[in-house]
């Protein structure tokens, strides 16, 4: 059944109550009346009318919604007291942003954030430096989450059988259902819950309704991690890794820098040991075994591409070699030198980490635990705590059980909070069909999705930015979700409030959360504690204490005999780097974000190696039909380097919403063939080539060969052996004296060794600088507007191994900028602090500057990409000009932030300090690869970085004298592996 996000019209036909309303609504007078008296309902009305295709067109171009008209959302403060992050002003100062600490939850796990608000309007999300999962950094999904708040796809009215209803009607119906029906027939289905308050509420609910059950399900769950822990220790423990403590890291298909709880922190810690400087040239070393290329693999010093089913064999062999008594299959499909080097490195290292990927089976996790124990890593680089999840169970099994109960008629009332199991349940668990067997179903959801459409009741949910809640981070640290504004619409309900309704509790979300923490708090002066927790964004001392689980005595028996590695084609499912499990499918920023390695936007693709493509007759950008157990999906092919042969990777989450596949009348939905038995990889898949062309929009020309002289790649040994290394280009003499910068002179340094290519900077820049979305077609025409792009290069190093190198390219702010003299109207000029500025209102749009920019970092508004529709305008940063059609734009080094710092400094009668100005890209960067500062300040960090021997400017030989310079990418390969195959 089509869902709400793909169809707006169909509900009218089956909604008996809707019909008179609809007739009435044809009249303009009624609309005007509704708009005047009930603006928010009018918004919902308008929403239902806008045809999807027309909508997508506009949304694709600029996130606008035609006809959303004069309504939209007026930001309100919450009624409760909220505590801003940095300082609490006596009153709100117009024009000055306020920051509020909160948390963004993904897969149950919290990342601490600061929400920037302007006059009460949230415009931006940044990492919270006080929060352990962030340390100030964030990722693309966190950054882009603010856009969801203003998403016009959001449905804001209660629906009963897809017809308009009200919360009062729902409350009454719910009470009737709860009273008349069997308590044992009550089921609560949620996503992963780490929220202490929600867990307490659920506990209370289960006590109030004996026999009722709570089931959690989300498609990207941690089932393997939980089962692996059970296998190794007989109990569920949470593993916290301290990458800053590890000299050697071996990853068994674990994409720990992108898709694990705590990955922002992990990336930070990992990179903290790779800051190679002239005076401190030491590095950790990462060995990556992976079944599909990831950004973690790109950062690795040695990378081994294995079929996913072979990773367990590798783990067994590794465990055996390190003294863990396990049975090892004889076949070893990898170069022995590579394996020996891993063993030798782990043995030699003082501390190390062996980490297993979420997608690998429990046995691999158990083996990793055993190896870490054998290497003595436990307690230092690997720390165990009690589980973070309120109820860590195998979610797939729980869902299967729930569906069995539903089919058997044992479920009478099903309350669902979040998620979309009709869409994303394993293909062999017929959740959607079973749903019709349940007499009373209600779905609390932010979007009206497939599950909402199949439920009797749809209750609109609050966005996390407008609700009170709490959650725990990867290490158990609790934080309060603090809303800087009240709900944009009166009709929305938070999960806490819905649960309260179930138990007849009438407290507000704020009181529920606050009173929970009051009940937990032992010391005196709770108010002070509460204010502290809200202000800092973390509940003090709430990280879970370490525990020391004991390994099962006979791990080999627990693991069972190794299964023979299957042959044939293997299919890997991965959460999408941008839209995750599909929850961000309505987020235009994330849809248009080029995926880190493939640089594809707006679409899903089947990643295959060139050899496999040849073998199967697959052609790039042509659909392939994947069949597994009678189920099939079609998806366009994208030939990818680093992909193991005979392995196809697809992303989860497509086939609905804003994806370009939906617009083209197709569905690249990987859930269609994902089963509960093999949620992450399967063998025995058939891939049939089709002749259907499906063009993909990628921002990177896909070429066999590329010129890699713009990236410098060095090994640590080369770096150490050449203390006089000097990569920078000496500027040629000029007849003119250099300009004397007597105040500030801004510059940037980007460390390509630290850059992991995660794209956080791109979205950070987009939200800070009001950068519009242009849509798939425009991306195909190379008109994407991102001011900052991350170029990906495949570079061969001295030993012949291919490395993936990421190079973020903002404007270089050249000292001798080629763009400046060619502009006929002086719309782009150098300022007295060295910035290459763009004067939008002077620009007439000759575009000559762009032709003369050797870095191609300028962007042009070829069409009207910025519209002034209310919801499109809400997220915008009022400190940054919104550019109109016909105007050139580019990175400004976040000049608005420089101005703000200058004003602050001037008010306080001091110069701007180092670190006071952080451009949005640098602020978003989890690894602190981007450093910005005043080149006139000898103590500035950026000056020290630019003095490094491996500092260089891209295309500096053109004598542009770029102010953005790079630190060469340094890798730390094991010398014993020089020139070995397998990488």
């Amino acid at each position, binding site marked *: 059944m089509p869902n709400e996000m793909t169809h707006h019209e169909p509900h009218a036909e089956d909604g008996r109550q809707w019909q008179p309303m609809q007739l009435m609504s044809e009249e303009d007078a009624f609309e005007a009346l509704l708009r005047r008296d009930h603006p928010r309902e009018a918004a919902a009305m308008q929403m239902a009318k806008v045809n999807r295709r027309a909508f997508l067109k506009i949304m694709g171009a600029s996130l606008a919604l035609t006809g959303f008209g004069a309504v939209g959302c007026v930001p309100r403060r919450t009624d409760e007291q909220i505590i801003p992050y940095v300082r609490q002003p006596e009153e709100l100062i117009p024009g000055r942003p306020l920051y509020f600490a909160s948390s963004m939850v993904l897969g149950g796990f919290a990342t601490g954030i600061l929400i920037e608000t302007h006059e009460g309007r949230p415009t931006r999300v940044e990492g919270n430096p006080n929060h352990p999962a962030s340390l100030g950094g964030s990722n693309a999904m966190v950054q882009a989450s603010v856009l969801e708040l203003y998403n016009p796809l959001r449905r804001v009215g209660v629906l009963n059988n897809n017809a308009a209803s009200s919360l009062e009607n729902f409350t009454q119906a719910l009470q009737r259902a709860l009273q008349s029906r069997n308590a044992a027939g009550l089921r609560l289905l949620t996503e992963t819950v780490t929220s202490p308050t929600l867990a307490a509420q659920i506990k209370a609910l289960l006590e109030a309704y004996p026999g009722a059950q709570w089931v959690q399900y989300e498609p990207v769950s941690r089932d393997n991690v939980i089962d692996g822990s059970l296998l190794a220790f007989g109990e569920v423990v949470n593993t916290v890794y301290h990458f800053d403590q590890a000299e050697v890291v071996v990853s068994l298909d674990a994409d720990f820098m992108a898709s694990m709880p705590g990955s922002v922190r992990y990336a930070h810690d990992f990179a903290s040991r790779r800051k190679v400087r002239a005076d401190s040239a030491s590095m950790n070393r990462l060995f990556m075994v992976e079944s599909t290329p990831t950004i973690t693999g790109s950062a690795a010093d040695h990378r081994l591409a294995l079929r996913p089913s072979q990773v367990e064999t590798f783990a067994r062999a590794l465990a055996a070699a390190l003294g863990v008594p396990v049975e090892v299959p004889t076949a070893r499909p990898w170069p022995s030198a590579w394996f020996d080097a891993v063993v030798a490195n782990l043995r030699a290292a003082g501390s190390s980490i062996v980490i297993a990927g979420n997608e690998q089976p429990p046995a691999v996790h158990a083996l990793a635990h055993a190896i870490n124990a054998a290497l003595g890593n436990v307690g230092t680089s690997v720390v165990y705590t009690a589980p973070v999840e309120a109820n860590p169970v195998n979610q797939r099994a729980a869902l299967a059980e729930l569906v069995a109960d539903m089919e058997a008629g044992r479920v009478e009332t099903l309350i669902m909070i979040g998620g979309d199991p009709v869409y994303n349940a394993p293909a062999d668990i017929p959740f959607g069909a079973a749903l019709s067997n349940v007499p009373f179903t209600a779905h609390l959801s932010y979007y009206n999705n497939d599950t909402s459409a199949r439920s009797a009741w749809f209750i609109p949910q609050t966005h996390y930015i407008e609700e009170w809640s709490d959650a725990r981070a990867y290490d158990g640290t609790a934080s309060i979700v603090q809303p800087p504004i009240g709900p944009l619409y009166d009709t929305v309900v938070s999960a806490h409030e819905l649960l309260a309704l179930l138990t007849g509790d009438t407290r507000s979300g704020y009181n529920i959360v606050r009173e929970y923490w009051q009940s937990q708090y032992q010391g005196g002066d709770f108010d002070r504690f509460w204010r502290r927790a809200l202000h800092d964004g973390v509940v003090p001392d709430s990280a879970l204490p370490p525990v020391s689980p004991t390994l099962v005595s006979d791990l080999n028996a627990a693991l069972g005999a190794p299964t023979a590695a299957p042959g044939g084609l293997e299919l890997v499912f991965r959460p999408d780097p941008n839209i995750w499990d599909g929850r961000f499918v309505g987020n235009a920023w994330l849809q248009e974000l080029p995926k880190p390695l493939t640089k594809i936007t707006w679409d899903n693709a089947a990643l295959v190696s060139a050899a496999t493509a040849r073998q199967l007759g697959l052609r790039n950008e042509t659909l392939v039909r994947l069949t597994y157990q009678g189920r099939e999906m079609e998806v366009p092919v994208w030939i990818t380097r680093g992909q193991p042969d005979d392995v196809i990777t697809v992303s989860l989450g497509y086939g609905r919403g804003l994806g370009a596949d939906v617009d083209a009348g197709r569905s690249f939905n990987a859930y269609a063939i994902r089963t509960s038995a093999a949620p992450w990889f399967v063998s025995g898949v058939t891939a049939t080539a089709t002749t259907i062309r499906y063009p993909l929009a990628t921002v990177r*020309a896909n070429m066999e060969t*590329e010129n890699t002289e713009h990236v410098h790649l060095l090994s640590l040994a080369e770096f150490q052996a050449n203390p006089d290394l000097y990569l920078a280009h000496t500027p040629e003499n000029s007849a003119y004296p250099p300009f004397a910068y007597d105040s500030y002179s801004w510059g940037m340094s980007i460390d390509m060794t630290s850059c992991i290519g995660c794209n956080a900077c791109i979205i950070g820049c987009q939200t800070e600088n009001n950068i519009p979305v242009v849509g798939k077609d425009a991306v195909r025409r190379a008109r994407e507007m991102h001011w900052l792009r991350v170029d990906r290069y495949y570079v061969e190093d001295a030993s012949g191994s291919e490395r993936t190198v990421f190079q973020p390219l903002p404007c270089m702010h050249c000292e001798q900028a080629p763009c400046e003299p*060619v502009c*006929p109207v*002086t719309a782009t000029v150098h300022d007295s602090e060295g910035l290459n500025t763009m004067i939008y209102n*002077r620009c*007439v749009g000759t575009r000559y500057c762009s032709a003369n920019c050797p870095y*191609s970092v300028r962007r042009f508004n*070829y069409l009207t990409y910025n519209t002034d529709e209310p919801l499109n305008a809400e997220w915008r940063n009022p400190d940054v000009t919104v550019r109109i059609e016909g*105007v050139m734009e580019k990175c400004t080094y976040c000049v608005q932030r420089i101005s703000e710092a200058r004003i602050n400094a001037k008010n306080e009668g001091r110069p701007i300090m180092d670190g006071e100005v952080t451009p949005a890209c640098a602020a978003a960067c989890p690894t602190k690869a981007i450093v910005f500062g005043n080149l006139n300040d000898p103590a500035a960090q950026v000056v020290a970085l630019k003095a490094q021997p491996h500092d260089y400017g891209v295309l500096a030989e053109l004598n542009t004298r770029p102010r953005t310079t790079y630190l060469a990418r340094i890798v730390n390969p094991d010398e014993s592996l020089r020139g070995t195959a397998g990488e």
Partner: protein
Amino acid sequence: MSTLDIVPGKSSPNEPQSLTVRQQPPDNTIGGVSDQITAVSLGKAPLWWWIGLICSVALLGVFAFTLGSIAIRGTGLWNLSIPTIWAIDIANLIFWIGIGHAGTFISAFLLLLRFKWRGTFSRFAEAMTIFALATAGLFPLFHLGRIEYFYYLAPYPNTMWMNPQWRSPLIWDFFAINTYLLISLLFWFIDLIPDIAALRDKAKAPVLKFFYNILAMGWRGDMFHWEGLRKAAFTLAVIATPLVISVHSIVGLDFAVAITPGWHHTIFPPFFVVGAIFSGMAMVILFGVILRSGFKLQNLIPLSHMDNAAKLLLLTGMLVVYGYLIEAFGAWFADDAFEFALVANRSTGPFAPAFWGMILLNALPIQALWFKSVRRSPTALVVIALCVLLGMWLERFVIIPVSLSYPYLESMWNVYTIGVWDFLTIISPFGLFLTLMFIFIRILPIISIAEAKQHLAEEAEHAHQ
């Protein structure tokens, strides 16, 4: 000067018979020349003129619609992107300015050098210059992202004392093209005055008479008038001659000044000038042949003059070929990896047909002009001229969107394709140019009557001696 009855047979001794079939024998008296030329304007329009005009006006409508859409909806209608920020817009600008060049070259350069045969072509070649410039001038305007602020390019007084960027070649362009247009217009007009007077005298309709009366500025054929006219024409020729060189040099500098691969060549200014005259001569020859047979002016546009024009076409064509060789040599000699990549991409990439088309169409057909019989065959000249025009358009295409498709950083490479609006922009400017040309040939003398008479008189004198 006296009325002489002479037959200027000498000027076209090798004229093929097929083209000299005349329904009425030409009256090669001084008065007859006047009648014959003014009859083109004042007589009944031939059918082909009406068909041509209607087609041109239809195409002009397409042009107006295209540019109007671009102005209203944005330059994004063209298939432009971030590497390829210019394509058909600027390719057309250069093509049309180039077309215009031949006119000034013939009227000013050859006037100063006292080439006699220039008089045959000068009038309509100058008209071509102005109409081609008018067409070309629209592109710098309509390629702007914000066309409504085009006046920012002019140093107009404003409260902020904001001047344009004098270092920008586009500003040089702005002044060069405007100066060129102004001088060309004046030059053309000065030359027209005696002929307009002739039209005034012949015109019967009061409206036409009034119109020509104003334009003739009281010309009576007085000796003082003639003296003043000659002085003015020579003075303007002296001013216009360097403009022939400067305008297209500056257009060439638009590219040479940029550091973009494929543009950064010091040879560009002279290369552009030669290329412009090359394409302009092709257009002059094309129109010469058409007017000659269309209005039966074989006696006034003799084949010997076509021969001379063809020689000039050959000369400039060979210089253009030299430019191609130097460009390839430069990439090799400078050992510049980016230039090398660009030469490789141009000649083997998706644009290879455009590149090889440019080379073949510009270099090969003109080789036939080494033969006198070809130079005097109107049919062959038409074919060669069309090849050159297409070849030179392709050259501009190769220089602009093709070079821009391959910037320094490969991550931004993006191959330009011709979209619907791009295609309309390629063909529709001919609507404006041809409409103006068609109107011109019916309202103003297409050959300078005064010069034709002078030419006849001089030849008669020669005959007497």
